[in-house]
Structures are given as structure tokens and as C-alpha cells.
């Protein structure tokens, strides 16, 4: 429903401009003669791709590239975010944040979260994908249900789990008691040790379907003959998986790993909804994405003063880390894919 009108708008926009003013605007369709003599054409006609790239480049340059560059510049100044920009301080903010315990605590939490999601996706999600890779009338229905959380908003997901885990009206504790795991019952979100694990599990709930579907797409590229040949040669199921199927999944593994790396280290929405701007309880669930927000707008409690340029320095650090590690992952995992094939 949300898709249709947007699609139609796209069409109308384009057609409107196409009918009224041809795009590129000025030149009428050149006759064969004109096209042959390139010298008579305006410079714009000789570079037709400019017309296609210009609108996006202008918008993207103004509202994406420029602010990104500006962020690097602002990180070198002392500025709270309002009033005139303060003194040039060079790399002082970067030194400060590298010495900050909160920064490293948040980085550690983000790292733990990624590690957990990585393990989860390569055990539970991969297992579900392997099981779903068979023909049955129900396969599509199961797949559609398992994917469902991916399309839910972080606000919806967060509120769903706040209800589930609530000590008074949630059903997680009573269900645990009924299946004989009563010792696991606790106040999930208030427990210093379990708050972060709870965040991890909710995050896994939301993103499991993505990994399942990506692995499933990879599995459908594994030729059946290859598996049969290995079986006939006397390989066991586990050996077939390890030596035939898993290597063929290398491209899917790359995608799942890089995607979840970027998603987890930028994460804000779900964790903010679950545990608020301070990473309750007592910073136990504070991650990088939420830390930057708190420092920029002064809701961090640690220092209620907003410190925009310091937060921007944290953002720049995160960007450098994301870009560097993503590039490393892509090249390492890409080499692994090539080595396998």
C-alpha cells in the first residue's frame, strides 16, 4: 500500500518533465546532419551523461558530501552547537575521546553486539536457511513469517519486547516458569548483567530473517548434482555441508557479515527505544550510536552540556572505523571467495 502511490508519483514526475520540456531541456532532437558534425553541437550535448548525473550530484553534494566534509572540519573546533564556532583545537577531541572510558565502554558494547549477531547468524540463521532450502508447500509461508520482523520498525520492535519482557504484564517470565526454566526469570531490562544480553536477543530477533533469506538465496545457487556426487562418493551429510555447501556460500557469508557489521555499529533506533539515551541500567547498554546522540544534544546525563564538536569527532572516528573495517572485510572475504572458486 505504501509502495503503489510512491511508484505512481515517480512515473508522473518523470513524465511531466518529459512532456513539457524535453530533458536535456534545450536541444531539440538533432537531425542526422547535426549529429555528424560534432563541432556545431553545444558542449552540453557532447556530454549527455551530465544531464543524468547533475540533479543527483547537486542534491547529494549539498546535503550529503558537504555535511560529511564539514563534519571533519567542525571536529577540529571547540563548539557546543549554538552560537559562533569556538577556538580551533586541532585533534584535541580525538585525543580526549580515545582516553574516555565511556567511549571505550560504548565501543565494547557495540563490538559485543556485533560478535553475538555474527555468531547467531552463522548458527541459528544459517541452520534455518539450510532447513528452509527444500521444496514444500509450506516453505514460502515459513520463509515469509521468519522474514516478517525485518520490515517492522525499530519503535514497534522495541515496544513489542518491552511488553514481552515486562516483569508484571510480560509473558517471557511466566513462559520460562512453565517450561521449567524458572531460574532464568528476572527483570530483564533492569538487570545489570542481562540488560545487554536482552538487547542482543531483541536485535537478533529483528535481523534473523535478513540473514536467513540471504543464506537461502546463496543455497539456491548450490547445484544439487554437486551434493549428490559427494553423497555417492560416500561423504556424510556434515562433510557435504563443510566441504561442498559452505564454501559455495562464501558470497552470502560476505554480504551477511559486512551488512550486519555496518548495521550494528550504526545502530541507534532499537537500542534507544529499549534502554533510552543513557543505556540503562547505568550505561550497561550504551552503544556508540546512542553515545554520539547523547553527547551532541546533551541528554547523556554524564555531562548534561551538549558538546556538538566533540560528538562530531566521535562520529568521524566511527566513520573512519566503519569505512576501514568494511573495506578490509570486503577485500579479505572477497579474496576468500576467489580462493574457493
Amino acid at each position, binding site marked *: 500500500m*505504501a509502495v503503489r502511490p510512491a511508484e505512481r508519483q*515517480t512515473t508522473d514526475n518523470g513524465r511531466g518533465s518529459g512532456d513539457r520540456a524535453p530533458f536535456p531541456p534545450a536541444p531539440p*532532437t538533432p537531425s542526422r546532419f547535426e549529429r555528424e558534425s560534432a563541432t556545431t553541437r553545444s558542449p552540453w550535448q557532447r556530454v549527455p551523461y551530465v544531464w543524468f548525473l547533475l*540533479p*543527483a550530484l547537486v542534491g547529494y553534494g549539498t546535503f550529503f558530501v558537504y555535511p560529511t566534509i564539514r563534519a571533519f572540519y567542525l571536529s577540529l573546533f571547540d563548539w557546543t552547537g549554538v552560537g559562533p564556532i569556538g577556538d580551533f583545537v586541532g585533534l584535541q577531541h580525538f585525543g580526549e575521546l580515545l582516553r574516555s572510558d565511556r567511549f571505550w565502554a560504548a565501543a565494547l558494547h557495540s563490538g559485543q553486539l556485533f560478535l553475538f549477531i555474527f555468531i547467531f547468524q552463522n548458527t541459528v540463521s544459517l541452520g534455518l536457511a539450510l532447513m528452509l532450502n527444500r521444496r514444500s508447500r509450506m516453505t514460502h509461508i515459513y520463509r515469509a513469517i521468519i522474514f516478517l520482523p525485518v520490515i517492522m520498525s525499530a519503535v514497534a520492535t522495541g515496544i513489542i519486547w518491552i511488553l514481552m519482557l515486562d516483569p508484571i504484564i510480560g*509473558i517471557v517470565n511466566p513462559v520460562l516458569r512453565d517450561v521449567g526454566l524458572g531460574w532464568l526469570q528476572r527483570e530483564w531490562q533492569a538487570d545489570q548483567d542481562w540488560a545487554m544480553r536482552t538487547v542482543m536477543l531483541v536485535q537478533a530477533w529483528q535481523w534473523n530473517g535478513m540473514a536467513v533469506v540471504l543464506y537461502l*538465496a546463496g543455497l539456491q545457487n548450490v547445484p544439487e548434482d554437486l551434493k549428490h556426487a559427494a553423497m555417492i562418493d560416500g561423504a556424510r551429510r556434515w562433510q557435504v555441508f563443510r566441504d561442498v555447501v559452505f564454501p559455495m556460500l562464501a558470497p552470502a557469508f560476505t554480504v551477511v557479515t559486512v551488512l550486519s557489521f555496518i548495521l550494528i555499529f550504526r545502530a541507534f533506533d532499537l537500542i534507544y527505544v529499549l534502554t533510552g539515551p543513557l543505556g540503562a541500567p547505568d550505561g550497561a547498554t550504551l552503544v556508540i550510536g546512542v553515545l554520539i546522540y547523547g553527547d551532541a544534544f546533551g541528554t547523556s546525563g554524564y555531562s548534561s552540556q551538549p558538546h556538538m564538536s566533540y560528538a562530531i569527532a566521535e562520529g568521524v572516528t566511527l*566513520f573512519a572505523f566503519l569505512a576501514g573495517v568494511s573495506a578490509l572485510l570486503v577485500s579479505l572475504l572477497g579474496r576468500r571467495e576467489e580462493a574457493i572458486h
Partner: protein
Amino acid sequence: MPGAPSPTTSIPSSAIRLSTSVRRIAGAAVWHGVMLVACAFVLIPIVMVVLGSFKSVNEFFASPYGLPESFGLHNYEKAFAEANLPVALRNSIISTGLGVAISTVLAGLAAYGLARFRFAGRLATRLLFIGGLVVPVQLIILPLFIMFRQIGILGDLRSLITVYSIFGIPLGVLVLTGFFASLPRDLEEAARIDGASHFEVFWRIMLPLTRPAIAAVVILNGVWMWNDFFLGFILLTKPDAMTLPVAIMAFRGTYSTEWGLIFASVTVSALPVVIAYLLLSRQFIAGLTAGSVKG
């Protein structure tokens, strides 16, 4: 059956057949069992919230796990009146609709330019667009926040529409460039010889062929814009500009004990995407994974 099989061979073979079919049934049972458990993990939390959206405050404490006493729309009516849901719904539709439309047009044109023409700096331009995918929103939103404050659109819907229209470009370029590049060149050359302009070739010939990829981009960007909380939360300070996720969180801050109203708002916000997903689940799954597979 001509020639009855000798008893010595028939008994073991039917026994084998029996044991394999037993094994197959057992295997199928285990398979369905595991799948049903996985589906239960997904569906039970969602169902609990939908059920909760029909309960009164007292019912939550009287029977937190039971069915609501009635499926009356009391909470929904109250949420529409008190949580400013109609305005939030309208804002979400406008910002997502315009964001998807503008970013798709910009990305489509740029992707075509990148895929069908050869020129110096082509790879660098493509990298510039696609590199946007690793820029953390937390970084870029801070200078943008300052910029919007200076030009005076901070706080209202225009700032969010601008951001959505631009932030949708990297994924759009990523998916569409690959698709445009895969189309055969002959088509384009034939049309050019017939006197079609570059834009006519793009609009009349290439665009209709890329419909599946455009659908993927629309779904991909549409879902994240509709669901986005962070950007709206930072940029929309005026209450009558809030989108659904922002309004729900603001509402939750003031009425934290009104569970029923919060769940009703959440259900309303998720409903359009879930309905679209139920109707087009294959396109959704293909679309939401298209960007990642190509990347």
C-alpha cells in the same frame, strides 16, 4: 503384477520401504516442528501487542496474558484523538512518499548516466554515491542539523523530506546501476539511429525494462523511511510535524502507563507495511535483499 515375488525377497523389501516412509514422515514432522517453533518466536510477540491494543488498563493487570474482553476500538479512537495519530499518519505518508519519489528519480537518472556512458571519473562518481552507505547517520545529521537551522527549515517536515530524498540515493544508485548496466546495448543504439534523444531512450526503452529493480528500490527505501525513527527524532521538533515513530515515542514519554494506547499506535504504524508485505511478500524479500546481494 506379473509373477508374484518370492516371499523371501518381498518381506525385507517392504520392511525397508516401510522404514524409509516412517523415517520420511518423522523427518517431515521434525522439520515442521522446528519451523513452527521459529514462526512462534516471530508471531507470538506481535500477536501479544495486537491483543494488547484492545485491552483496557485494568485488563492488563487483571489478565495480562488472556484475550481482551472485547475487540472494541476504544483504544484506537482514543489514540487517534489524544496521540495526534491522524497528523502523524499524514506526515509519515507525505515524507515517505516524497522521499521515495524524489530519491528514486534522482538515483534512477544518475544510475543511468553511470551505467550507459563512458567518461573520465565514472568510477569515482559511482564510488562517491555508493560510499554514502558506510557514512554513519549520526555523523552526517549533526552538520545537517546546523545547516537546516541556518536556512530555517529545522523542525518541520521539509527538513525530513530533504534528508530522505538525498539519503535514499546511495542504495538506489547501487541497485539501479547494476541493473542498467546489464541491459543490452543494441536496444539503445537502434533507438538512437532512429533519432531518439538520450532522454527518450532512457524514458521509453530503458526505464520500462528496469521495473523490477525500481520496485526493489522503492520497497527498500520506502520501508526504511516509513520505519525511520532517528532522523525524524533529531529533525522534527514541532509536534505537528512528527512522523508516526517519533509521535509514538513522544506519546510513550507522557502516557507511559497507557499500554493500550501505545500498542494501538504501534499497530496503526506497522499495519500499512505489514499489509503491503502480505500482498507482495516475494517482491519485498527480493527487494530488501537486492541492495545487499549486489553490494
